[in-house]
């Protein structure tokens, strides 16, 4: 059993519809391959932890990395684990229209994301805490991203 943690940037911001489709697609694929974990999304920032058999999640990561919907895919961890830390697969984000999402299974509001599981090593739990902060701490990331955006003009 292995797990992989990565961060990336969506090429364009994902709409509620996009997120909904992504959720459906991942739920289907992950259930089929017995892949568990969690995905964080906010303001174009993506982070995901996936756990499963190495010959499943290795190619899965390769496929994700090649997906044209995001770029700057940066792997933070890829190593054997003794047990799963997530019972299923779920996704946490701020929908623009929260009404339709509450009934969805596998969906979490970022505030509802539980503490990093104690089955993770301290180093991996710290990675998860830092990626969650990097994804959802939007005020800071927005202010730090602003100069790079404006310097692209003219």
């Amino acid at each position, binding site marked *: 059993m292995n797990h992989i943690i990565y*961060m990336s940037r969506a090429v364009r911001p994902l709409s509620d519809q996009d997120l909904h489709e992504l959720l459906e697609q991942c739920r289907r694929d992950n259930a089929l391959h017995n892949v568990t974990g969690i995905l964080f999304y906010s303001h174009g920032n993506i982070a995901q932890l996936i756990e499963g058999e190495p010959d499943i999640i290795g190619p899965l990561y390769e496929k994700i990395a090649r997906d044209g919907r995001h770029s700057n895919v940066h792997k*933070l*961890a890829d190593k054997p684990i003794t047990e799963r830390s997530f019972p299923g697969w779920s996704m946490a984000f701020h929908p623009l229209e929260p009404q339709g999402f509450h009934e969805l299974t596998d969906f979490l509001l970022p505030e509802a994301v539980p503490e990093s599981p104690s089955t993770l*090593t*301290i*180093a*991996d*739990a*710290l*990675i998860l*805490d*830092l*990626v969650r*902060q*990097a994804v959802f*701490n939007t005020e*800071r990331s927005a202010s*730090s991203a602003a*100069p*790079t955006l404006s310097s692209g003009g003219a």
Partner: protein
Amino acid sequence: MQHQQLQHILKHVPAGIATLLGPELRFSFANEAMQTLLGGKPLQDQKLADQVDILTPELVEVMQQVYQAGTQFVAKAYGLKHALSEAAEDEVPRYFDIALEPLKDEHDAVQGLLVFVLDVTQQALAQQRAHELARETRRLDARLRVLTETAPQIIFTVDAEGRFEYVSPQWYYFTGQPTTADLNLIWPLLIHPDDRLRVMYQSESARKAGVGWSYEYRLRRHDGQYRWMLSRALPELHVPDKPVFWHGAVTEVNDQRELSEALRRGEAELRFLADSIPQLIWTATSQGFIDYYNQHTLAYSGLSGEQLGPTGWISLLHPSEQNLGARRWVHSVATGEDYEGLFRMRRNDGEYRWHIIRARQLADSRGPRWFGSCTDVDDQHRLREVLQAQYDELARTNRDLDTFVYTASHDLKQPLHNLRGLFDELRRAATFQDEEASVMLEMLDDSLSQLDVTLQELAATVQEQRQLNVPAETIDLQSVTEEVLLGMRPQVQETNATIELNFAAAPKLLYGRANLRSVLHNLINNALKFASPLREPRICVSSALSETGKPLLRVEDNGLGMKPGDAGDGMFQVFDRQHPHIAGAGVGLYLLQRIVNSRGGHIEVDSTPGTGTRFTVYWFE
């Protein structure tokens, strides 16, 4: 028959035909096209002047002039605003070629006009468009020229053989070559010899392959200096032909190149420095993931950079400190606050050593990054722990001793009191035969008094000791000394002593009030106690600044004086008495010593037996 055919043809030709007869120019014949053009009404016998709405007064005037002059006239692409042709739906101007031919009789006299009107609107519009297009092309051309010639770059066009088709004037400014220079010959010669062959090869192979290029080389400037240039070009493609021209620009990148070179060098040097330091050094991204560990970190932990990973340092901490360390790091990354903590870190042999971990965020134009270090303070930490333990032990012992002394002196008071009572009772009730008895009784009395004083002073010492921790305040020496003297008035009067006070040189002192009173009391008391019986005591109390500018206190007397002790500080040992015949426990000076020393000062004594003594208290040195 022929006439009918002619009528038919005239009726249907797609051009307006009409004949106008007589000086009033009345319509005699007008075909369908002409009728439509003039509004669709029948024109037979109508006067030309009635059609002025459509034909414009100007045209009517011209037609009348042609009739009078008798010479033909053709108006090309004449605009008729209200003309209606088959296609016309709204009032856009339409254009016509209008031919006016005088009709003459056999005597060459003008009878009327033959009018021939051909709709040339399409041609006229096409011509107009062509004209506008040409103007737009000229405008674009001018703009391109301005842009090409003002851009801070050399713009060029080369053909498939590499011959220069065009180069913007900047090339001449940059190289300082005359405009007559042969570009194809000179340009390669201006390229730095070390780059020339490479540039020629790269450009030629790009042209052969029909692709663009982008390379850097050094070009000689007008002042002879070689400057780094970036040359980029793209082929002009006309599918499916092979490209014929390459258009491109040469940009000076010397400064950027030198800057990035300096940056690279600086970074390499910094990394080398970081790798040479026997400290754990690391850098992290703005999100808090470590992207560099120095050599020493790897050596210390015995792990590779890959094994450590972006957060692996946390697993080096002592298990009991990992959660705290991680929480603080997440907080620092979120807020940008400095990270600082004292943690135990595991060495490659499994030993945990104390480290101060510090990290600071650098926010510059390249975005925020973290720089951190872990300093091994294990030896200092252990030494401090040992010292602290010893200090605690000493302080406790000291406290115990003080308590013992205080309790003992207190507990002894009662038996002494009893002893004194019993002795007085005994002296009153009993009679002594021995003639030395009165001397012995007196000695016994003295001893008891002395024991009493000793006990009192011992108690005072401990009391004083407990006041050492009182905070310092700024004290006026004059008033405090007067207060102390007031309390000693009986002794002063009894000895008839003269006491001079002089605090002009340093009137104030920052000290514990009770301690200062003790010091003054003891020194003045001492001077009074050891006054010489041969003269009236004179005591001088003064303040001054030492050579180093720190305050000091002097108490000088003209008393008995002392012998110098065995050691410099011999006279300050507890119970050591200089003058055994004078009552006192010998505790006073010892007490002084402790007070002054504990606040970082010392006392010096200068004394001549039989002349006098001078005490100097250096408060802070």
